[in-house]
């Protein structure tokens, strides 16, 4: 009891100091600080994703403030489980939901929550705050006032707020702009939580000693969970393949979707997990780290307190699988079960038609008093979903607006980055929407993961003045209720390939029992790292280990299995398996690099690190249109006739694009990405009826860099089309839709599915549809025209 009181006092002092240090820099901060430039918001009235805009600052996490040094080196700071991209809280009312694992037996019954953060310069501290809750218990609140550097706050988490196992931390960021109350300005509001230096500070010293504790491991500077397969210097591909089940099992058991696997002959540095497969009958596999380990799976704390080693030790290499199975049935089982069956926050899995409420997905309703309400959730659709117009996915809206809003208030729904519909909310006396049906066009969705974002523009006339003393920032303007429903109709089911979105979403078609051969064209550790990272992504996406092996070299026609090819030359994709320009002889010995090199994505990224891809279908028409748009601005002395013609041409082009289901013209379309790039390409091997997916870049360094970019969950979930080009500098993706799909599997042959499929196919080929209709009905009409004169009173001539 004495001890507890003492800790409470310490915690109180910490909090007081933290708040003080956090506020003081703000007081002296200039709006024109060179440290952080505000993000330019979109044009008023047009809601765009801020992700889609290039931001001209580096959101680095590499230089934490001095005040954080304790936390950085403190070995008992348990990291949050969420990937790095979730740590940015944007908008006027953003809610971040994070989890951490806690072991009361080993780490005590109380502890401190450390929140290190930095915010945009435009955030007004007087009206902005972070509110923290742990498992629903409020533990702290402080003004957002750290625009120049990361600063940390610590809060004591009392025993009654902690649970053994998964703890939920909710961080609500209420943010208001200093000088601008417009909608556009809300995009300038953000607060970033430092993913490396935030977490739970345990009461007692804590060491990683069992498999369960792996969930507490921190992330590397890249923001990824580092899983390093350590192999001996002279190991070959057989050793690597022997370790694949272990790597896949650990990828699954961690319950994270940002695992990056590296292959090296050295152990790693910093937060992460080293993986060893030790066999007593192989001296080269008898690692020092495994010297004291028992047979089977075990966890060994390394010298680096933030790093841990997982050892699978077997009497012989042949018995490694049996030892792993024993571990899976034993200590790993609850971890695997929890990881596979875990329901992700704000994610709806719709394997078939059904009705789902936002509340079921974890959304919590709360009154919104800002100008632009934003919330989003993911909808995971089945792999064989055929997106077309045979139905709509409906949002059954339950919401309300307050009196006094501008009549141009509206609710927008964005699907996968594109605004698909809007609902005017014109009633200035306040409006209640009870199950208002909002149709979301099916074509905006894709198989696998889809992001749906709901935005409500709820401005008031008083926002224009934006006088601080007159602002009422507490009066609610909008509420989106938890019983808002997503209604997924019966879907047309037929799997069509190539489609990288379903590959990324559910690992289709690699998730079935068929063998997946992973080809590493070069036998170097970088290419193999990329291969294992991709394999790990597949494993996590499918929720099960893959029946796969790594093969060195390029695939040939004799391989009838599905294939994933990691190629350090992009030209290999085009040249195909019969090309003879392969510069590298196939080797069965892995080439390890001398330098323990791992690309640092942060140092090379000159733009904001989280970016959604743009689909740029660079047809000649699009390029011409984009060119015309650019040159149009300089043509100031066009004749009236030319202006009219230009308008007409634009209208015609827009109409033609609409007819072809193409998205609206994006003036940013350039048709190409400059600089270093990689490609993720899916092709079909008709001869073997198999699917080949290529990850190719121009060097082994680039291919591993590409794999790390794809390891970021928010980027991975936006992969689509048949050919994704990854800009390795900016992390921008450019997706190309396939010119033609091929049916890969067709199982549901029920009449209703056939009807939906017919509708979907005809929608994509509607000229055939119209020709058939005209032909059928013309035939019918001619028959009628010959029959009716003979019916009733005969009138035939």
């Amino acid at each position: 009891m004495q001890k507890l009181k003492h800790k409470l006092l310490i915690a109180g002092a910490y909090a007081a100091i933290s708040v003080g240090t956090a506020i003081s820099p703000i007081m002296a901060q200039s709006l024109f600080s060179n440290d952080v430039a505000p993000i330019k918001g979109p044009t008023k009235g047009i809601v765009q994703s801020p992700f889609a805009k290039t931001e001209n600052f580096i959101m680095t996490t590499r230089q934490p403030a001095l005040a954080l040094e304790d936390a950085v080196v403190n070995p008992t700071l348990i990291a949050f489980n969420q990937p790095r991209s979730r740590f940015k809280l944007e908008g006027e009312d953003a809610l971040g939901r994070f989890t951490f694992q806690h072991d009361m037996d080993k780490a005590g019954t109380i502890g401190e929550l450390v929140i290190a953060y930095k915010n945009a310069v435009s955030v007004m501290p007087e009206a902005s705050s972070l509110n923290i809750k742990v498992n629903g218990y409020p533990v702290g609140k402080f003004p957002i006032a750290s625009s120049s550097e990361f600063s940390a706050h610590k809060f004591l988490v009392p025993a009654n707020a902690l649970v053994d196992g998964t703890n939920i931390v909710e961080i609500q960021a209420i943010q208001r702009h200093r000088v601008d109350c417009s909608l556009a300005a809300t995009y300038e509001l953000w607060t970033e939580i430092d993913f490396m230096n935030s977490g739970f500070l345990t009461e007692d010293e804590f060491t990683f000693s069992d498999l369960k504790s792996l969930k507490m491991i921190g992330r590397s500077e890249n923001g990824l969970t580092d899983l390093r397969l350590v192999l001996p210097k002279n190991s070959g591909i057989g050793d690597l393949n022997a370790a694949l089940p272990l790597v896949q099992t650990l990828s699954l058991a961690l319950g994270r979707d940002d695992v990056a696997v590296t292959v090296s002959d050295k152990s790693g540095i910093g937060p992460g997990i080293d993986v060893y497969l030790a066999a007593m009958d192989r001296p080269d596999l008898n690692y020092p780290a495994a010297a004291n380990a028992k047979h089977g799976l075990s966890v060994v704390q390394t010298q680096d307190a933030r790093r841990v080693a997982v050892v699978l030790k077997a009497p012989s290499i042949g018995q490694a699988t049996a030892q792993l199975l024993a571990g899976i049935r034993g200590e790993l089982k609850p971890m695997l079960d929890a990881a596979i069956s875990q329901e992700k926050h704000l994610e709806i899995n719709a394997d078939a038609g059904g009705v789902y409420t936002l509340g079921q997905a974890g959304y919590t309703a709360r009154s919104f008093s800002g100008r632009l309400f934003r919330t989003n959730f993911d909808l995971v659709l089945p792999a064989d979903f055929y997106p077309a117009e045979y139905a709509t996915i409906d949002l059954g809206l339950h919401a309300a607006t307050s009196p006094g809003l501008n009549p141009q208030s509206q609710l927008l729904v964005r699907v996968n980055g594109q605004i698909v519909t809007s609902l005017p909310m014109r009633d200035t006396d306040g409006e209640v929407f009870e199950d208002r049906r909002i149709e979301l066009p099916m074509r905006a969705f894709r198989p696998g993961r889809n992001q749906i974002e709901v935005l409500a523009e709820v401005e008031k006339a008083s926002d224009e003045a934006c006088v601080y003393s007159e602002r009422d920032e507490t009066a609610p303007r909008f509420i989106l209720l938890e019983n808002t429903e997503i209604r997924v109709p019966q879907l047309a089911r037929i799997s069509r390939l190539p489609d990288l979105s379903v590959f990324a979403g559910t690992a289709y078609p690699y998730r079935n029992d068929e063998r997946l051969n992973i080809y590493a064209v070069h036998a170097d550790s970088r290419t193999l790292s990329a291969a294992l990272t991709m394999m790990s992504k597949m494993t996590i996406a499918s929720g099960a280990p893959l029946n796969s092996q790594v093969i060195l070299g390029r695939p040939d026609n004799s391989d009838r299995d599905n294939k994933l090819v990691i190629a350090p030359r992009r030209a290999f994709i085009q040249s195909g398996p019969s090309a003879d320009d392969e510069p590298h002889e196939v080797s069965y010995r892995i080439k390890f690099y001398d330098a323990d090199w791992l690309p640092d994505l942060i140092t090379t990224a000159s733009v904001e690190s989280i970016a959604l891809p743009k689909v740029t279908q660079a047809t000649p028409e699009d390029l011409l249109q984009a060119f015309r748009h650019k040159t149009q601005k300089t043509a100031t002395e066009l004749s009236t006739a030319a202006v009219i013609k230009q308008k007409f041409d634009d209208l015609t082009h827009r109409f033609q694009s609409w007819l072809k289901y193409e998205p609206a013209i994006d003036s940013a379309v350039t048709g190409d990405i400059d600089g270093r790039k990689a490609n993720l390409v899916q092709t079909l091997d008709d001869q073997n009826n198999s699917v080949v997916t290529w990850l190719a870049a121009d060097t082994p360094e680039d291919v591993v860099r590409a794999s790390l970019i794809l390891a970021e969950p928010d980027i991975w979930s936006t992969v689509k089309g048949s050919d994704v080009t990854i800009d390795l500098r900016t992390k921008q993706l450019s997706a190309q839709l396939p010119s033609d799909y091929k049916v890969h599997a067709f199982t549901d042959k029920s009449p209703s599915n056939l009807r939906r499929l017919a509708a979907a196919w005809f929608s994509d080929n509607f000229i055939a549809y119209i020709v058939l209709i005209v032909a059928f009905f013309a035939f019918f009409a001619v028959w009628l025209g010959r029959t009716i004169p003979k019916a009733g009173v005969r009138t035939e001539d």
Partner: protein
Amino acid sequence: MKLAWISAVIAGVLGIFLLWLPMSLQAQLVLSFASLGVMFFAMSRPDNKVFRLVTFTFCAILAIRYGFWRSTETLPSISEPANFIPGFILYVAEMYCLIMLGISFFMLSDPLKRKTPPLKKIEDLPTVDVFVPTYNEDPELLAGTLAAAKSMVYPKEKLKIWLLDDGGTEQKRADKDPQKAIAATRRHEQLKALCEAMEVNYLTRKRNEHAKAGNMNEALKVTDGELVVVFDADHAPVRTFMRETVTYFLDDPKLFLAQTPHFFLNPDPLEKNLQTFKNMPSENEMFYSVVQTGLDKWDASFFCGSGAVLRRAALDTTGGFAGQSITEDCETALALHSNGWHSVYINKPLIAGLQPETFDAFIGQRARWCQGMLQILILNRPFLAKGLKMSQRLCYAGINLFWLFPISRLIFMFAPLLYIFFSLEIYQANIQEFCAYALTYLIASFGMQSYLHGKVRWPWISELYEYVQSVMLFGSILSVIRSPRKPTFNVTAKGVTLDNNFISPLARPYFVIFFLLSGAALYSFWRLLTEPVASDLLLMVAGWNAINLSIAALALGVVAERRELRRNQRLPVQRHGLMRQGDKTWSILIKDASSGGIGVQFLDDVPEIEHDSNWQGEVEVRRAGKQVKFPVIIRSGSIVEGENHYGFAYTVRTPEVFMAIAEVMYSDQEILQERINRRQVRQNILTGSWVFAKRSVTETIRAFAYLAGLGKIEPVESAEDAPITVKDNNAQIPGKVMPMPQTMGGNRAEA
């Protein structure tokens, strides 16, 4: 043949299956264009039956698709009753229109053009009783009709003419009100004298039971002709009426009805007040020129109360004319069709009659039709009636359901206001969907309207007629739905003169609606200007309201009654004749004729006729070498564009003069046909819309001028028509019904 049938059915089913597929908006829009293209192409050969059915089919594609989309995609959520309830009402109104469109496609799929069968032997002609039922019509009107009936070409011994007087029944003559009793007695005596003078039969009965049907059923008991011809009191037949109709009965022993169209000498209130009578096709022409010919194809043309021949044997099977509803004509036809009897429709104008002159009389007539048809719908349930073929069921259901139009019309008028004033979103669609489904359907509808009815109905005129009736008939519909047996027969007033311009006593709701829609138009315009993000929906609704406002504005012109001084409606005739005075003779062209006088042009020499003189002469016309003469007196004269025009009145109106009038007016059926043909001119949608919009403005101004008392005109005095001389001793009866009892005038005849 069977293979063709099977193939066509399969093609149709496959087509429907494809239509049923939930396709993209892009596909729907292109399909719309394709269907419209095929439809308009097929319209280029209106006389080709195959092309006609292609036109129908492709319009039906757009209609079916619209209906399906409307039903599945556009209804508001039931959880929002403020939106859902009015939205559903609008939806029901639209579905009603779609059903009516489908039925009309069926009805009009192959309209019949009949050729009169040749007459083989005169001896085979059946005996005929001509019924002229009357209740309160003027004697001169009856005299004209009876004279025309007498003039019909038919063996005299086989033709009997009966005036069936329900205004002089024993019940009426014994009325407790002495004035009514005297008036009925006077009418009884005068009409008896008239019939005697005209050598036709007068018949009345004891009690006024079952109105017109009861009147005719009483006549059936005392007559025995094989065929019965019915003429309303104001419907005068042409000479060839019997020739054109009776021969059908010789060919088909199961034929119970030969119906002819009703041609009208005078304008209805809309035509009169909007001054469209000379140029625009009459409202009834759509029914008589198009609908009845379509019904005839399916053996479903029905009795319209007058201008028809019926077989007594058929009537006997159902106990005579049906009297359950107040539209005994349609009900009678329904009963006989149900018993397996046939009907024919002869699309030639063979009778000429009068329409109600005033707006309230017009509404009274339409209220009777509306209530009667709905009575049949409710009480007789034609769609389920035994004995009818499916095609007949559809036709009867269609013609009865049509009279629910006031409900849908009013819904269409008021629905936009819900969005404009209250932002209720009762039609859930965006502009792209509206264009792909609704707009293309509307274009197809307008195209079909022009294709089917273009010659007989100008653009927007149907909407105007529907609207002006709807405001007043809405209550009638509710009344008959509440108590289907309650409505009673009321006789439409005709032959009325209007001394001055005035606002109809029924005008108030039309002005209220006009103000309401004007307010909505202004408010929607204000919203469009002030709302920064003006929605597609507001634009669509504002446009819809503007069209409604235009209709409501022109309706004000309809209820702003223009005066009607003409007592007797003229018929242009172009008949050569001679004018004699003493020993002088002039060659004349009789340009028009009425029951009060004739319009004359002197062809060679023009007599010296002094202004305000009592110049008299005798007109002589000839038929088959036989002279027909009648005396006339000058009433007016003028010279227009070098042509002289003189108006003469009959100095006396004896039975012989009435026969002469019938000879001049109704001897030539072609005159009636020519007048119809002259007005059946198409007007395209753009011209029609422009004219309609322009007149909406001018007629609104006129209506408000009348409302402000600026429409008053100095009364015009005119000479009275000659009384009717019914006896050799110059005994006379007045041409018009007098308000007070009056004894018979004239000189006592020497015994």
